[in-house]
């Protein structure tokens, strides 16, 4: 099969890229080894967060946040997005100090979306927070979406615009022959002028096929969700320095994350949970919000996620091949970036340029000069 562009990976980055390319009239095939949204994009915590981003990511994340506000309308689909604001709680004086320093950095870069809260404001926004918490920082546009729905929304919109999705198609090989990329899967051969690597936790393997080496690692961030509770938290909640992160959905269930990692078994497509660490996340949740002591955990899971050493994604052209691009390695905060990634990748593929400075995201930023 032939297409102008072959996208490897049907996560939110791949689906959004397919959507933007197809909208521009480019013929696209997405090759997905499982099914779209099977891994990190479909099972993550759903946080749509601008707060606390690395300064290098802020311009992209800001643009993405604007897109999220009207995404359901744009795609003609339900992504489950709800704007709820996000609050990172400061538990002690050290946290307050961290927030002040951060505020200075953000202000001197001209960013004003993060707003400090004192103890009184924190308690008004989160009446059930432990009274010892001192304050926090908030971002108004933040919220959450339903990960699988959002990924599927991009996929369905992409298909309506003409993109083709081939699921269950795992890459065996990919090489550039003359002016085309030849891609082989277990069942078929594909040909395209351009390839885009959105393969998430498997992206280093795809990068190697393209000709780029990248120090990608993978891990399994763990999540747990409770049964329905009476509403006690409107905003999404995080913490400045503790492993605390949760959100209460409209149906009353509470999703608890916090960054504790299980065991990632990439070769077998599997994750295992580390229950002692999850138990510690449970303790933290109860410490900050005593009301949660009575909650019942209904499900626990983990997804396979790709990490870069500096926790920043790779976004941009390949270093060692023509007509190849990368968008992966979002290090557990890529879901919010999906919409803008799709736009940026489409711009790069079609015109070779985009509206953002991608220097911090170059694939060869870890290349070493050897003796």
């Amino acid at each position: 099969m032939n297409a102008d562009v072959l996208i490897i990976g049907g996560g939110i980055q791949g689906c959004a890229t397919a959507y933007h390319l197809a909208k521009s009239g480019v013929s696209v095939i997405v090759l997905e080894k499982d099914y779209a949204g099977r891994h990190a994009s479909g099972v993550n915590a759903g946080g749509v967060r601008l707060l606390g981003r690395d300064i290098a990511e802020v311009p992209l994340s800001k643009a993405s946040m604007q897109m999220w506000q009207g995404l359901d309308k744009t795609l003609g689909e339900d992504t489950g997005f709800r704007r709820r604001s996000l609050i990172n709680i400061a538990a002690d004086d050290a946290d307050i100090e961290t927030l002040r320093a951060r505020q200075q950095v953000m202000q001197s870069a001209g960013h004003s979306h993060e707003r400090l809260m004192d103890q009184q404001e924190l308690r008004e926004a989160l009446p059930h927070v432990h009274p010892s918490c001192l304050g926090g920082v908030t971002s108004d546009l933040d919220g959450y979406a339903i990960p699988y729905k959002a990924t599927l929304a991009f996929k369905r919109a992409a298909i309506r615009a003409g993109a083709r999705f081939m699921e269950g198609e795992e890459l065996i090989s990919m090489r550039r022959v003359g002016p085309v990329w030849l891609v082989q899967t277990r069942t078929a051969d594909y040909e395209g002028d351009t390839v885009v690597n959105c393969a998430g936790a498997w992206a280093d393997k795809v990068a190697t096929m393209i000709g780029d080496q990248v120090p990608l690692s993978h891990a399994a961030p763990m999540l747990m969700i409770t049964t329905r509770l009476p509403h006690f938290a409107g905003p999404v909640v995080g913490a400045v320095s503790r492993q605390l992160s949760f959100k209460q959905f409209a149906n009353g269930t509470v999703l608890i994350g916090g960054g504790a990692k299980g065991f990632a078994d990439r070769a077998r497509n599997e994750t295992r949970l580390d229950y002692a660490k999850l138990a510690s996340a449970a303790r933290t949740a109860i410490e900050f919000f005593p009301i949660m002591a009575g909650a019942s955990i209904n499900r626990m899971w983990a997804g396979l996620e790709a990490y870069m050493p500096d926790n920043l994604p790779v976004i941009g052209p390949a270093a060692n091949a023509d007509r190849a691009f990368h968008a992966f390695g979002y290090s557990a905060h890529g879901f919010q970036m999906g919409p803008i990634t799709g736009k940026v990748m489409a711009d790069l593929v079609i015109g070779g340029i985009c509206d953002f400075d991608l220097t911090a995201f170059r694939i060869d930023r870890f290349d070493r000069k050897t003796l």
Partner: protein
Amino acid sequence: MAFDCAIIGAGPAGMSAAISLSAAGADTIVLDRAPRAGGQIYRSVADSPLADVSLLGEEYLQGAALIEAYENSGATHMADADVWHIGSDGTILFSRDGETHQIQTREILICPGAMERPMPIPGWTLPGVMTAGSAQVMLKSDAVTAENAVFAGSGPLLYLIVAQYLRLGVKVAGLVDTTPLANYRSAMHLGPSALRSWPMLHKGLSLLREIRASGIPFYRNARELRILGDQRAEGLSFHSNGRRDIRSDTVFLHHGVIPQTNITRALGLDHVWSDIQKCWHVKSNAWGQSSSPHISVAGDGARISGAEAAQSSGRVAAANILTRLGRINLQDRDQQCRLDHAFLAKQAPFRRFIDTLYNPAPALSLPEDPDTLVCRCEEQSVQNLRDGFDKGAANPNALKSLTRCGMGPCQGRQCGPIVTGLLAKWRGISEADVGYYRLRSPQRLLNLKEFSRFHALSAQSDKEAAE
């Protein structure tokens, strides 16, 4: 220090295995959710609230002897232990007394028992509709019965509870038997070989005779079942030589039993679809070993074969585990298991006969009315699932992610078999090719505080805790 073997479930299979393992000196722990050993079938037989327990039948009484032998076996028994995680690394987590405990074991024997096959007729989720199994639990644990109830469905357990009700003098509004006439025809030619298990066959026939002799309304070949009532059950409507309605506050449904596979699923063990029993079986060999050699399964949780066979399969699995632990050699194992293997072989034709006779009617296994709920926890109807399927969610996990079907507290126990069946029907492929939900621990709801109190216990301290 770790245990040699941990057994999950103290029903006939688990108790029998524990007796064999302990007798051979293996350090064995049995984790059971109930306050007293016995499993579903022998629930409360040792401390029955009923004045005359013999009315529940001879088979039930036989359980008392097994429980006694088990309680004297020397195995560490953990009552009220709610196992919510088993890891393939031999880690087991369970809740007990408001805390989370962790143990380590070399070998794992899983005896989770059976559950009732969901019977999603219109109105099956209304208050007042229960399963025959829950009628049994109420009767055995609390001596509670429901006056003037309708019993509907098919299979030996349905006839047993009706007979028990009649013996206790409880008024029964009717028995609505859904066994299709065609099943009698297909089972007929299996009859002669089933005669080898005459006592069991005889037992079943006597139950039916007892019910017929009682004179309660008994309808056969019933189809198109529907619960009457909007807010709660007001009766049952069905077709059996014409449309009939029976008025009643309580309807007990039963449609056969299937293995509980949530634990074995969460362990990532291989499962196979059984076209004969119309359910998933965890894949296991003649010794009960699963696709992970140190994890074995026995009893109705492995495949439905009844309490006697469960005891045999428990002993067989235990003998094999003893060879793996280096306590007996292969010759001894084979010698020890000769009688049990012979029994299992002998009762196979009878089981085949029962499976054929009570093969679930497709119309009762898969809901046909678009408004019928499939997922009770998340209130997802057939139509909701069909919409998700039409959006591209073609496998159980994608459908779960999109519709929330199977995300509720029952962990998909109720909707899982139906979802597989519906997708197989819609896609025109086999259940085996559709597959099943990807399941995770916890096996049941876990209180956050209970979870946060996390203790790792050694074999020694666990024994002390049990005493």
